Structures are given as C-alpha cells and as structure tokens.
C-alpha cells in the first residue's frame, strides 16, 4: 500500500468537504483508477470527475500515470478562469 494525498478545488472541494484528503491505495494505482475510487466514495463528484484533469506533484498527469508513495495528486475540475 502507498500513502498519497489528493487536493480538491472549487466545486470539487465543496462536494468532498475538504481541500486535502489523505488516502491509502494499492501500489501502482493509476490516475484512472483513483478517479474511479473517488467517484465511488463521493458519488456527487461523478459529473465533475468525468471532465476533470489531474496533476501529480504539480505536473499534469495522464490517466495511465501510476501513483507512488507520498505523491500529491490534484483533482482539477473543468476550469473557468480568465
């Protein structure tokens, strides 16, 4: 198992109820798998999760990026800046 943390922003933070979540995951969990885990744990996150981007340690990540011990994942719902 690995320990990671997940950061939530904007509407996702409101749904999750906190801006940072510590999680234990099986080693070699991918971003796509993490997305599935989060959608099960927070059903209201589903509509945001389907269009969310992810970053790992402040770098944009792909769905098949594998997570490692102490990674900091950012869950980035569709952006509306500008």
């Amino acid at each position, binding site marked *: 198992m690995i320990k990671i943390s997940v950061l939530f922003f*904007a509407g996702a933070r*409101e749904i999750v109820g906190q801006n940072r979540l510590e999680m234990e995951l099986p080693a070699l969990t991918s971003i796509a798998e993490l997305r599935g885990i989060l959608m099960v744990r927070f059903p209201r996150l589903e509509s945001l999760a389907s269009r969310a*981007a992810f970053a790992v340690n402040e770098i944009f990540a792909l769905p098949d990026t594998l997570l490692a011990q102490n990674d900091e994942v950012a869950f980035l719902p569709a952006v509306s800046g*500008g």
Partner: protein
Amino acid sequence: MNMRIQLTNEPIAHQDMVENCRSKSAGAVVLFLGTVREITGNEQTLFLEYEAFAPLAEKALAEIAEQAKSKWAIEKLEIIHRLGILQPGETSIAVCVSCPHRADAFAACQQIMNKIKEVVPIWKKETSPKGVSNWIHPAN
C-alpha cells in the same frame, strides 16, 4: 526573457503592463482585459470569487507564454490573473503583447486567452444578489 506571469489578489495595474510592453522595436501593442459582467444571460452577478491551484497555474501560464513566443515574433509579454473576490466591472485577467507587426500581436494575445480559458487551473464562483453561489465548471 521580457515576460511577466503573475497571480495576484490586488487590482491589476494594466496601465503599467502597457508601458512595460511598449518598445521601439514593436510597432503593435495589444492589451486584453477580461472584466466581470454584471449580467450573464439572464443571471445577475453580485460578485465573483476566483481560486487557483497556484503553483500549477503559474507553470501553465508560463508554458502558454513560451508556446506563443515560439509561434509569433513577440517582443514583450505580460499575463496577470487576479484571484479572490471581484466586483462587476473589475478586471480578472489582463494579457499584454507587443510585436513588430499587428497581425502577430492580435493572434498571440487572442490565442493566449483561448488557451488560458482551456487549461489553466483557475475557477470562478458566481454569487447572485439573492446570495446563491455556484462554482462554474463548463460542461465543454
């Protein structure tokens, strides 16, 4: 480098951005301001709140700027995005570009804005006069 990227909680001093971008080797300066509208569609806005994942937002803005510099002949470039609570009429983003020729300056400034709207991790929450707040997450 001649480039400035900034997130700020203060009002954006766009006048300074224009002065910084002017140059004797540039024939064209284009400034874009994104400002808070009082009415969007049928909805009234009391105020907006902008939030960023700041470290990644700054990196993403810098990358957009570098891509623009590799595509167009840019002399100087400044991008400032404001965060926090903004009233109608205030400026949420300012992009200023100077180029030798005007077609480049228009194209660069416009494409930078399009990219910012697409990928930079910044979000806004609208609050109506009735006190209803909603984070905006475009469904494409």
